[in-house]
């Protein structure tokens, strides 16, 4: 199946996806087909895949939080000598081109398998992750958090698990890093003002619109990532992370219900978006009074969950 065919298939069926779960399954299918197609193409030009590997997703795709439009965030990990780097970067570049044709925008931050930072051998990946944590700068910890939200879409899952295992050992030996990771995502853009009003964009083409991604979704996503890091849980989709954490932290039940309902809320208001940028914003005028109340509740509870997570990590994880 060529990229253009996959694109057509996407256009024909994407609006048939009835909910958030179905939509994300469909995205996975689309991307698997695209990656397979890219692999075929590269095989024809450069020969067979030279080593076992895994193509993994990051960002919203990996966490299964994609809307109708999404950008690309992905990488490759291969089990073999560094001389294979060129082959896999070539494959990465082909995947990027293919996904772009199918309808996934290139990542502005270049978190893509075509870049050497995101395509590496297992050993180099382990070293890179340790370097990021050792450096503990704002940028390096951002890279780390991005990497940690990774999920294998195609290939050998154990390769990625190996690298994540290194992460867990590192954190166990350097528990103070957890405080830095908390600070790294601690800034939450305020969504509700002192009068209890929603705070939309004040200028530009998004005037009067609420950034649901940064103001509502991120506090949940970031809090849950921190808790799985601290509890050495491999799962990536936020909903699955919630499920795995719930047995230990019963207070999470309430937040999981809210988060799932937030995903449904986002799906409902962004399913007809015409372009990628639009899926992060909801115009206030589209919301009823009840919708606004609901959105405020998500923002309030998201911030509350982040606070509770901070305290939990302070107590449990950063002082092993």
């Amino acid at each position, binding site marked *: 199946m060529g990229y253009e065919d996959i694109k057509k298939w996407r256009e024909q069926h994407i609006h048939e996806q009835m909910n958030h779960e179905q939509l994300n399954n469909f995205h996975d299918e689309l991307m698997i087909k695209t990656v397979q197609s890219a692999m075929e193409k590269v095989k024809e030009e450069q020969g067979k895949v030279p080593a076992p590997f895994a193509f993994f997703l990051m960002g919203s795709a990996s966490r299964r939080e994609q809307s109708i439009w999404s950008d690309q965030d992905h990488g490759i990990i291969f089990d073999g000598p560094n001389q294979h780097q060129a082959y896999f970067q070539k494959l990465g570049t082909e995947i990027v081109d293919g996904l772009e044709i199918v309808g996934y925008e290139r990542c502005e931050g270049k978190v893509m398998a075509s870049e050497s930072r995101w395509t590496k051998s297992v050993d180099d990946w382990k070293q890179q992750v340790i370097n990021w944590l050792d450096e503990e700068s704002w940028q390096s910890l951002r890279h780390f958090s991005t990497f940690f939200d990774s999920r294998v879409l195609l290939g050998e899952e154990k390769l990625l698990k190996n690298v994540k295992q290194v992460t867990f050992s590192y954190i166990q030996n350097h528990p103070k890093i957890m405080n830095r990771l908390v600070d790294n995502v601690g800034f939450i853009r305020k969504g509700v003002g002192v009068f209890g*009003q929603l705070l939309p964009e*004040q*200028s*530009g*083409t998004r005037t009067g619109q609420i950034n649901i991604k940064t103001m509502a979704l991120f506090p949940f996503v970031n809090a849950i990532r921190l808790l799985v890091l601290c509890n050495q849980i491999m799962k990536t989709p936020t909903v699955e992370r919630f499920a795995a954490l719930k047995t230990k932290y019963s207070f999470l039940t309430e937040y999981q219900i809210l988060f799932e309902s937030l995903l449904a809320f986002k799906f409902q208001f962004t399913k007809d978006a015409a372009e990628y940028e639009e899926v992060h914003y909801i115009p206030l005028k589209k919301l009823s009074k009840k919708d606004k109340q609901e959105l405020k509740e998500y923002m309030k509870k998201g911030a509350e969950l982040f606070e509770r997570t901070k305290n939990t990590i302070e107590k449990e994880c950063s002082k092993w």
Partner: protein
Amino acid sequence: METVLMDNLWVIIGTFLVLLMIGGFILLEAGSTRMKNAGHIAGKTIFTIGIGSLVFWAVGWGFIYGEGNWFIGLSDFFYGDTSFNEEGLSPAVDFIFQMMFALIALTIAFGGFAERAKLSAYVVFAVLFSALVYPVVAHWIWGSGWLAEHGKQDFAGSTVVHLTGAMAALAATIILKPRIGKYNKDGSSNELAGHNQVYTALAVLLLWVGWFGFNGASTFGVSEAFFGYVILNTQLGAAAGAVAAMLLVWAITGKADVPTTLNGALAGLVAITASCGFVEPWAAVIIGAIGGLIVYASMRFFDRARIDDPIFALSVHGTVGVWGTISTGFFATEALSSGADWGLPGLFYGGGFEQLGVQILGVVASGAYAFVVSFIILKVMDKVMGGLRVSEEEEIIGLDMSEHGSYGYPENIPHPDEQQAK
């Protein structure tokens, strides 16, 4: 005799302070706009105050204070009185102090031209505004015109200086239309952020200090050291304006916006300008705070009305100038109004609605005159000069280059030829 000399000395110090406010306006306008226009803004301001000074000397003073009628003065042109008065100010001191106010009004008016008007438009309008707009309103209120006879209170010029300047700015803004990139096709507005908030903040501080001369020396003397009281009110008004604007913008948008806070301080100063010699300190706090609140509301109003006001001249000097003038109708005390033989007490001091009515009448008449005459002048200029606005290309490369041939920050902006080569 010694007191008279001190009176003269105090007013000439005030003159220096007010002239330094021009430096404040340069920093304010340059800091609030893009760097490609910074040199132009600095240069044209100095150039136009040169023009304004000459016009004021030739005809401005005569139109304001000359012997004439209810509408305009008609003597004392090409001023040159070298006499010395045993009482009151020496004529030359009075003249030079008054000239500074005309220059401030002119500079405020040019706020509406920012980032898109031709240099030639500045030149012509500097002459016509300084001759035909400002002196008429000043004659009505401060000369022997019809509003002065009604007892209109405007201690240092909320109406005469700020509102008159702002009305001309409004006319210019409407005729010039918004800057390229300010509004999107769907009507939403983009923030064309100023290039240097530190400039803007220092501008506010410079203006604030200058305002002590603007208001303080409008006592025209040192008698009973009343200037101290006037400056106290000025300080309180500015402080309350800054605090109120910051709290309001934070409450509404969730962000403690710096330009709004700075505009709040200026709004407090503009608001208290009319009333600083008539009200009690607690009232100065309220007048300044309300100025700070309405300046933000006004900024949002003009933005949504698609009136592009790059340095917020319409809101800071116009909307708040109106409020400042009307405020004495509420807060003027008996001792400082009728007791000082300048109008009547305000509504809250048992003066009824009379002074309030006079204030409103003054605002409406002065505002309407300044707007209509400026609009006609600018429309005629637009026709005769083949447009007031630079071409799209010139606006994009910046007025530093299009109007003057060199950038204010040459190291930071590539020359247009180099830009093309890339």
